[in-house]
């Protein structure tokens, strides 16, 4: 019994420390994942913890289970609307991007380590894919609002590029151990079955799960377990049939998350906690597994690999892959830079160790060091690089909290919480009066908290700075509503320095702009609506923050509606006083 309780004590302690440590990660500007890894390494054989953990099989088991949970959660939170701008580019990165990166890096590794080319390629394939856990966590918690195209590209890529890396690793292990059976045909067949089965079983499983979630009447807490167990089933079954379980579970998550029902919120809340547990558990275990002193033996090689990967292999593969999609240069650079490596390479590096590939310990240690460097250098600079490369867009005004309240099984109302800021437009008005700014939408105040206690609403109630209100209002107008509650910050138009002084109607004619300012534009463009003109000049699906110069003016997309429609443009006049 002591043995079991010692294990519990240890597990509890490691998780507990990791959670506490998370509060300092924001202050240090370090990615949380790195901290979890650090806790594991400190607890391990070279650290004060001194725990000797060498079981690659158990580590691989825990890491794969954790990854499936993280991918499921990531899928649940991926909006299908983001596919509009990024599905095809991300698909190219998830296939060609991995091959291109691995091929370039493989040649470099073969030369650098002076090993058999197949071993070099294997090493490159191991670190070939970006990591969903790292990308989701770092992009969503970085504190900057990224341009939607960049964020969606990186997220979908990371969710979908593991099958390709797994395939490459399996293929290289095959050529090393059984060269006679490894033929090109067998690889193509394997790729087809990995992707095909992964996609089919993932979508089908997701469909069944979302139907079940809508139909079944379960206690609230069980919905998340339904999805979790269902996701695990999809993952395992797909793997057993030689499909890609990672791809399947990600797709299943997307299907479930985009068919909203009364249970969706419960599932999201519980899954959030489980995804954190999975990340902390996985990275602590991987930190325990590695032996830092052995990693240092190969530090120089790992550094060279990481530098080549970050500065040459990935940028080249990204630039070539995204060529048809007309990404602006700064976005290409950012997508290249945020090619975060994480748990997947470490899990993949375990495969050759378990399979008994010669020199596999070397692979494991180098791969691990590359992951560490990627998290340390690229992970820590996610917000900084966004600022430097200008892929950041001004933060959206948002409700402080949001709830979806289901009325029966079929309909839902959104409840939004706002806080009245000093100088806000809502100040001095009756909360229900705010609805008159949004004709055609039902806006009602359900609760007002003033000075810490619930305040009775009467016809004479006037909002004051510091008040908190819960409003019933459709989610579409949450941003506009939030703006009425936000302080004015003395600016005339919100974020005028980014979007420009004037707001332009996207339905107005391009000829109106040309005539108002005496600009010359092509005859064919004169008849276009301003929104169309912008879309044509961009040559790619527009996102908030996209900018086009017309004469000395700059037109910027201010707001996007659903279905990829531009709903507001900003117009920036030539700055006075000689340049920006």
């Amino acid at each position, binding site marked *: 019994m002591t043995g079991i309780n010692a294990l519990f004590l240890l597990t509890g302690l490691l998780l507990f420390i990791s959670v506490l440590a998370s509060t300092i990660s924001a202050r240090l500007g370090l990615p949380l994942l790195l901290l979890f890894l650090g806790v594991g390494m400190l607890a391990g054989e070279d650290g004060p913890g001194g725990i000797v953990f060498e079981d690659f099989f158990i580590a691989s088991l825990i890491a794969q289970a954790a990854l499936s949970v993280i991918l499921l959660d990531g899928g649940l939170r991926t909006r299908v609307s983001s596919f509009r701008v990024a599905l095809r580019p991300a698909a190219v990165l998830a296939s060609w991007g991995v091959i291109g990166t691995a091929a370039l890096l493989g040649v470099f590794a073969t030369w650098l380590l002076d090993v058999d080319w197949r071993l070099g390629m294997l090493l490159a394939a191991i670190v070939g894919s970006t990591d969903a856990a790292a990308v989701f966590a770092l992009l969503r918690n970085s504190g900057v609002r990224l341009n939607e195209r960049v964020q969606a590209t990186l997220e979908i890529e990371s969710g979908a590029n593991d099958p390709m890396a797994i395939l490459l690793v399996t293929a290289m292990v095959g050529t090393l151990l059984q060269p006679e059976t490894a033929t090109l045909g067998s690889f193509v067949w394997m790729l087809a079955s990995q992707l095909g089965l992964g996609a089919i079983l993932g979508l089908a499983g997701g469909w069944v799960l979302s139907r079940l979630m809508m139909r079944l009447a379960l206690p609230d807490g069980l919905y998340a377990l339904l999805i979790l167990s269902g996701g695990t089933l999809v993952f395992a079954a797909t793997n057993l049939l030689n499909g890609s379980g990672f791809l399947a579970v990600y797709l299943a998550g997307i299907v479930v998350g985009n068919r909203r029902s009364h249970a969706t919120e419960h599932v999201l809340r519980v899954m959030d906690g489980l995804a954190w547990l999975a990340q902390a558990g996985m990275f602590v275990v991987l930190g325990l597994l590695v032996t830092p002193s052995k990693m240092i033996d190969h530090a120089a090689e790992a550094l060279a690999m990481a530098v080549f990967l970050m500065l040459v292999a990935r940028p080249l593969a990204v630039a070539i892959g995204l060529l048809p999609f007309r990404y602006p240069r700064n976005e290409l650079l950012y997508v290249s830079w945020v090619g975060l490596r994480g748990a997947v390479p470490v899990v993949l590096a375990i495969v050759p160790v378990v399979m008994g590939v010669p020199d596999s310990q070397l692979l494991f240690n180098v791969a691990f060091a590359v992951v560490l460097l990627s998290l340390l250098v690229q992970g820590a600079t996610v917000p900084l690089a966004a600022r430097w490369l200008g892929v950041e867009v001004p933060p959206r005004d948002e409700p402080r909290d949001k709830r979806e309240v289901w009325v029966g099984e079929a309909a839902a109302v959104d409840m939004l919480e706002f806080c009245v800021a000093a100088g806000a437009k809502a100040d001095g008005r009756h909360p229900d009066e705010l609805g008159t700014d949004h004709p055609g939408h039902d806006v009602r105040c359900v609760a007002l908290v003033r000075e810490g206690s619930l305040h009775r609403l009467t016809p004479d109630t006037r909002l004051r700075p510091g008040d908190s209100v819960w409003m019933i209002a459709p989610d579409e107008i949450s941003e506009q509503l939030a703006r009425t509650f936000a302080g*004015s910050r003395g600016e*005339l138009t919100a974020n*005028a320095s980014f979007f420009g*002084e004037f*707001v332009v109607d996207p339905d107005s004619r391009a000829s109106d702009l040309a005539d108002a300012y*005496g600009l010359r534009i092509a005859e064919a463009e004169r008849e276009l609506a301003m929104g169309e003109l912008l879309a044509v000049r961009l040559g790619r699906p527009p996102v908030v923050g996209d900018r086009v110069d017309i004469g000395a003016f700059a037109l910027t997309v201010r707001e996007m509606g659903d279905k990829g429609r531009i709903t507001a443009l900003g117009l920036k006049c030539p700055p006075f006083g000689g340049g920006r």
Partner: protein
Amino acid sequence: MSLISQLLPLSNVVIDLDASSKKRVFEQAGLLFENNQGIARSTVFDSLFTRERLGSTGLGQGIAIPHGRIKGLKDAAGAFLRLATPVQFDAPDGRPVDMLFVLLVPEQANETHLQLLSELAQMFSDREFRETLHGATDAAQIHSLFVNWGADAANQPDPAV
């Protein structure tokens, strides 16, 4: 002295203007330019409305800078109007407008003319400047505010614009 003050004669500063709508404000502006600068009022009116088709020239916080190009105009001309009661202007923040700077530029407007717009926007984004304009008791005081604005502010452009 700011660029703006060079195109704003004292006679083009009007306070407590009575106008019940955007349209009436533009008519009054036309009248003002016709009397003071000899530009036909219908020309002014049409030119201002042409620009509004693109989207409101309201900036927010009760400020608007309607503008337009005028055929045959040699130098840019401006007028500042403070309204007795605010009018609806479809400004992005939804607030009615009560202070307007009307800017007319020659038909062959060059970049300098267009930079006037961003200079105006920068002026008005200064909250203190807006409040002083609001509190001013006569046209001469407002005029001198525009004349003196460049003196201290030009060296430290407001980052909020």
